[in-house]
């Protein structure tokens, strides 16, 4: 934890010339645009992004289900992919938390891997945190088209990574963006990995309540920094034939920047 914080503090102090991008299996296969948008924003700050092709998954799904030994092997397959001392940017608080806090635990009794895991943990940084602390992109020239935005923060971002302020801070830097707060804002969306399959009715009840609260705000856009939550929320929105779709914060920012002239079409595509 301490080393991780120090790592985060270090990345805050100077802009690296290059970073690793750990896309997460969810983004790679289910939400590729979010990853591309995050990469694009990092590159705009003049930083090179390296996507190690051998990456797959942080191991969290098995880890949280009670299959640590399987998780350990998957995590171990990632350990050699980030050899240079660059930050490892993860566009998800949940997977970022796995790298930062749980990888070192997974390899507690394997000194060689533990050292690598600790090193990566100290360099792991969640995307919105990286945007705020390190990139320093000027967002003031983004589209000024008025838009009301509801933010859903993943529980890991909020409670494990302590980076739930970052998305809001980014949104504040952009003109025309009004953040609305849904009822029970800090409550979980009900995803919880395999929880959603093992206890589908409870998970669904949570997801339904969350989506009810979000749509009740009448927001134009729904933003999150976690694609796991977004799969859950968007699946629910789509099933109830709502036109709102949540999007990754990187996608939202990139679109606002690219339409800085304030194209009136912007709102539709942001949905």
């Amino acid at each position, binding site marked *: 934890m301490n080393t991780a914080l120090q790592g985060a503090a270090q990345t805050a102090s100077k802009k690296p010339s290059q970073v690793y991008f750990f896309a997460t299996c969810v*983004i790679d296969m289910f939400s590729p645009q979010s990853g591309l948008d995050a990469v694009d924003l990092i590159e705009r700050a003049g930083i090179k992004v390296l996507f190690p092709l051998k990456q797959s998954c942080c191991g969290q799904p098995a880890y949280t289900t009670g299959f640590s030994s399987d998780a350990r092997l998957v995590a171990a397959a990632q350990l050699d992919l980030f050899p240079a001392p660059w930050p490892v940017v993860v566009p998800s608080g949940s997977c970022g938390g796995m790298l930062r806090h749980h990888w070192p635990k997974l390899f507690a009794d394997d000194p060689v891997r533990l050292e690598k895991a600790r090193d990566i943990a100290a360099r792991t940084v969640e995307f919105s945190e990286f945007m705020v602390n390190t990139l320093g992109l000027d967002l003031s020239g983004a589209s000024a088209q008025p838009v009301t935005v509801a933010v859903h923060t993943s529980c890991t971002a909020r409670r494990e990574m302590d980076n739930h302020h970052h998305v809001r801070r980014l949104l504040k830097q952009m003109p025309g963006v009004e953040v609305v707060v849904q009822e029970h804002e800090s409550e979980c969306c009900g995803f919880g990995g395999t929880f959603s399959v093992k*206890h589908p009715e409870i*998970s669904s009840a949570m997801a339904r309540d969350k989506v009810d609260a979000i749509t009740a705000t009448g927001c134009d856009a729904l933003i999150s920094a976690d694609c796991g939550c977004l799969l859950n929320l968007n699946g629910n929105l789509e099933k109830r034939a709502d036109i709102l779709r949540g999007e990754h914060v990187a996608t939202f920012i990139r679109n606002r920047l690219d339409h800085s002239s304030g194209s009136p079409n912007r709102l539709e595509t942001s949905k």
Partner: protein
Amino acid sequence: MSVTEHIVRPEDFKLRSRESVADPKLRGNFRGAMDFLIDKRAAQFPDNATFTLLRKVGETTRKHALSRLPDLLDQLEINLQRLGVNVHYAENSADANRIFLEIAKKHHADMMIKGKSMVSEEIELNQAMATEGIECIESDMGEYILQIDGDRPSHIIMPAIHKTKQDIAKLFSEKIPGATYTEDVDELISMGRSVLRDKFRDARIGVSGVNFMIAETGTIALVENEGNGRMCTTIPDVHIAITGIEKVVEKLEHVVPLYALLTRSATGQAVSTYFNLITGPRRVGEKDGPREMHLILLDNGRTQAYREEKFRATLQCIRCGACMNHCPVYTRVGGHSYGTAYPGPIGSIISPHLLGLSGTRDLPTASSLCGACGEVCPVGIPIPEILMRLREAARNNSDGADQALRGQASARKMLEALTWKAWRILYSNSFLYRPFVFIATRLRWLTPTNQAGWTTSRTPLRPAPRAMRELLAQRNKQREKN
């Protein structure tokens, strides 16, 4: 008075929780009640820094006590005996009930008056005594309401929280002789109290729980709001206190931060209305207090939690209920769904030790691991982490370094284990994973439309047409060309 059978079992959690989430009245009641408790607690901890500091003190205090548990119990026992208190160790519920019965028989008691005690729920004291013809009367108003309705607690602090004022008004008008229907809360309470007054006078034995035990002085601390706890422990001739072995601390001063955390976390009170410190039975020359006093120290699986480092923090709990108030799962399924004395997050981490993992195996999985419980726990129990370790223990044989838990590996299913094994092979070999992603995105239209639990309330999960790795490579190629 009706006696509730053990109608709900933790084995039925999935079934019961399914029914509960489909019940809008129940969900509405719990949501409203939990929001109320959340706000009251929040008002007591206006800034996070103060809470974090106080919690650290609470955590350290409990950890320190647990690290010396065997010694503190010895010290406690010596001091209690010096005061003339009879100390009994009970290994399990049956043991504890047998001790109650022996004391009751000795005093020819056919009735006991009881203050609120979750441990007495844990051992199902009322039911056990009823089969011996002994009536246990609940004197905590919430518990009393449940008892006359043949119902069970759904929350460890607010046992009747699932009942509305109207439910109670109706119940009293039906069950209390001479009562008329009223929704006036004060009137309802005074109705219940007047019935209980007589019982306090008639009871030979008073039963209470314990919040803290102080090893150095042999003192029992009892936190309550209604005064019934004080009556139970002072009016009857005999006082039997029952609690778990983990509740001991070394010194009185260690109780101070824990008490401050308990009342604030539980009900949002800076102090409770009553705080009883009981040090032995009536002494020569004293005008009140029980003439005989017993303390029953219950193990019932607690030493199993104590034994393994990764589960020991479970015993730090001071039973404030904050974890359930903040739990999105508990809020939706209510306390009864769990089928255990302790529902919610604390129940899901302690019940596997009390009852064994095989019957309780669906409890640790009933969490999205959102961490709200761990965030508010006043003694810093890493509840999500412990839930994960229990999931692990339910699905894997112990690795030799640890002793097996009761019911270890009882939730292991071949198919689940094989699925994760296949996942592991695929995801840890990039020469398999990369073609897998390629094919899965190409064949996305073949993904099943019915995806078990996922599609209960969501559209099917379907891979994107192209993976990020491909799109990124395409983009980079394009750039090189330009």
